[in-house]
């Protein structure tokens, strides 16, 4: 309803109510410039004020040294040049966080894509009933909010009353009672990765399954007739056709998993130990946990720069699609 009212006021100049057909065409030709700019103006203002400006301020902040007292007094913090960057880039802890985030991204995205593609292919092979069951299950998993799914996992791996320890404990000769999954970072990261993969599979499998239905059946049958086995038909027929879609979902997964925050935050009770810090939680902890806002900003700037390549790639892909229509 609101959408109906606003446009009338937003572009003040458009055509008078009773426009003869020729004039309509003429007006379109005469001022092609102003109407779209007026339409886009509110969005541009909002994006400038609440995205571009903060982004700029973040960069500025990373060259300053903002302390808590500046927050209260409102005084301009002192300029420190590249000090913040020097500090983080020469800090072994920072590099271990970068490395951990990168390794997690590569491992979790690889597992997710392989499993997602496998499930998508499986959905093409199973009976209708099973496919529907798979679809419904994945829809529910996909719909669950990130924080909630993290809390469910936290409950399931609970050391004392978690169902996972109970189930593993049932295996004869294995004692998993009161086993803490986060004492050893490797085990903890296995839990986090499982959670991320579990939550990520529905998007991947459903999207890739939709993509697979676009692969012409005749092509696969022709390949079979020509003596190709399943693997050859997958590698030489299906994957090349699926490639554009695979590229996009992989890019999105990299962007999402590289920014891992919620799962770690919830599983580690809002104060992740050093071994569980990712770039996102590290920047947050520096800024809001230790009031090192400038240091946190510098870390965020570096994070965005690290992501820039992947993002540019995604924007280019989407841009080509958007340019078509």
């Amino acid at each position, binding site marked *: 309803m*609101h*959408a109906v009212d606003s446009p009338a006021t937003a572009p003040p100049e*458009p*055509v008078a109510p*009773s*426009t003869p*057909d020729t004039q*309509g*065409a003429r*007006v379109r030709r005469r001022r092609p410039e102003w*109407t*779209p700019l007026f*339409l*886009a103006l*509110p969005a541009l203002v909002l*994006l400038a004020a*609440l*995205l571009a400006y*903060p982004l700029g*301020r*973040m960069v500025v*902040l990373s060259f300053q040294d*903002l302390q808590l007292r500046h*927050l209260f007094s409102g005084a301009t913090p002192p300029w420190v040049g590249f000090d913040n960057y020097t500090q983080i880039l020469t800090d072994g802890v920072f590099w271990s966080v970068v490395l951990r985030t990168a390794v997690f991204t590569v491992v979790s995205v690889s597992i997710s894509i392989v499993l997602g593609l496998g499930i998508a292919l*499986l959905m093409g*092979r199973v*009976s209708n009933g*099973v496919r529907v069951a798979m679809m419904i*299950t994945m*829809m*529910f998993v996909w719909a*669950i*909010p990130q924080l*909630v799914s993290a*809390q*469910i996992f936290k*409950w*399931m791996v609970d050391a*004392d009353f978690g169902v996972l320890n*109970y189930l593993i404990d049932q295996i004869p000769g294995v004692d998993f*009672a009161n086993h803490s999954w986060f004492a050893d970072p490797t085990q903890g990261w296995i839990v986090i990765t499982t959670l991320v993969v*579990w939550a990520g599979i529905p998007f991947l499998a459903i*999207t890739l399954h*939709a993509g697979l239905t676009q692969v012409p059946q005749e092509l696969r049958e022709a390949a079979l007739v020509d003596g190709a086995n399943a693997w050859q038909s997958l590698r030489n027929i299906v994957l090349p056709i699926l490639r554009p879609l695979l590229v*996009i979902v992989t890019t*999105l997964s990299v962007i999402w998993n590289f*920014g891992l*925050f*919620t799962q770690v935050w919830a599983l580690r009770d809002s104060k992740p130990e050093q071994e569980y810090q990712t770039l*996102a939680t590290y*920047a947050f902890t520096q800024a809001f946990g230790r009031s090192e806002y400038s240091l946190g900003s510098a870390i*965020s700037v570096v*994070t965005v720069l690290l*992501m820039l390549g992947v*993002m540019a790639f*995604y*924007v280019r892909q989407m841009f080509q699609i*958007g340019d*078509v*229509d």
Partner: protein
Amino acid sequence: MSTTPRSQRSRAGTVAANTVGVIFVVVMAFPVYWVLNTAFKPASEVLSFTPSFWPQNPTLDNFRSAIKAPFFLVDLRNGLIITSTAVAGAIVVGFLAALAIARFRFYGRRALIVVILGVQLVPLLALLIPLYLMLNQANLTNTLFGVTLAYIVLILPYTVWTLRGFIAAVPRELDEAALVDGCSRWQTFYRIILPLTGPGLVATSIYGFIQAWNEFIVINTLNNPETQNLMAWLLQNQTQRGTAWGPLMAGALITSLPVVVFFLVVQRNIAVGLTAGAVKG
């Protein structure tokens, strides 16, 4: 093509595939089943060393204690206000911008698209520090208004991009026919584009609702419990109470319910929005 050996192989293959499929369903569904199972158990069964796989004495106690817990109802109300305002704002503003991108060729269009797609990928978390400082300076922390502004920007880029797709799907010939028949630009918009993009507007609003409803990092940083939403409530109750798993899982169920229902309604459109047109290539 359907020679005997092949169809036999297929039948054995289908049985194998179905088995794997069923195992997959069980594994995927287990956490969902477990949260339901926990939420309806009395405390004595939740904190048991031998968990039962079905509530022996099903009860609604957990739901009662979640609702009665401090700030639950306040945060529920806050969440509804913030989310609906942010979605309404983003839809109005986003629709206009989408109209500009989908229906006009103008100087700066490319730049606008790049901005819309690019900012979508800048993690909101990275912007949290300056956003906090800005809103703090403007005395807008601990208010519903400040966080609503942040949420509008959170959902705006996706809104513009998705609505662009829906508008572009309306054949341009319809616009032109209406113009030829004497409609003004405004009438063309009102009578042609708006009704035809109705379902798209609904789907996009719902997706925006889900995003804003699920957000908790920004609101948890900017606001105190009195001005937070249910997601932040969940996080705080997890850290404060530690082991009160029954009420927490019940609260999580209540919090997820609107999102899950909405999500199931618009799932198809969400996938399309994220990967638009990639298959057609």
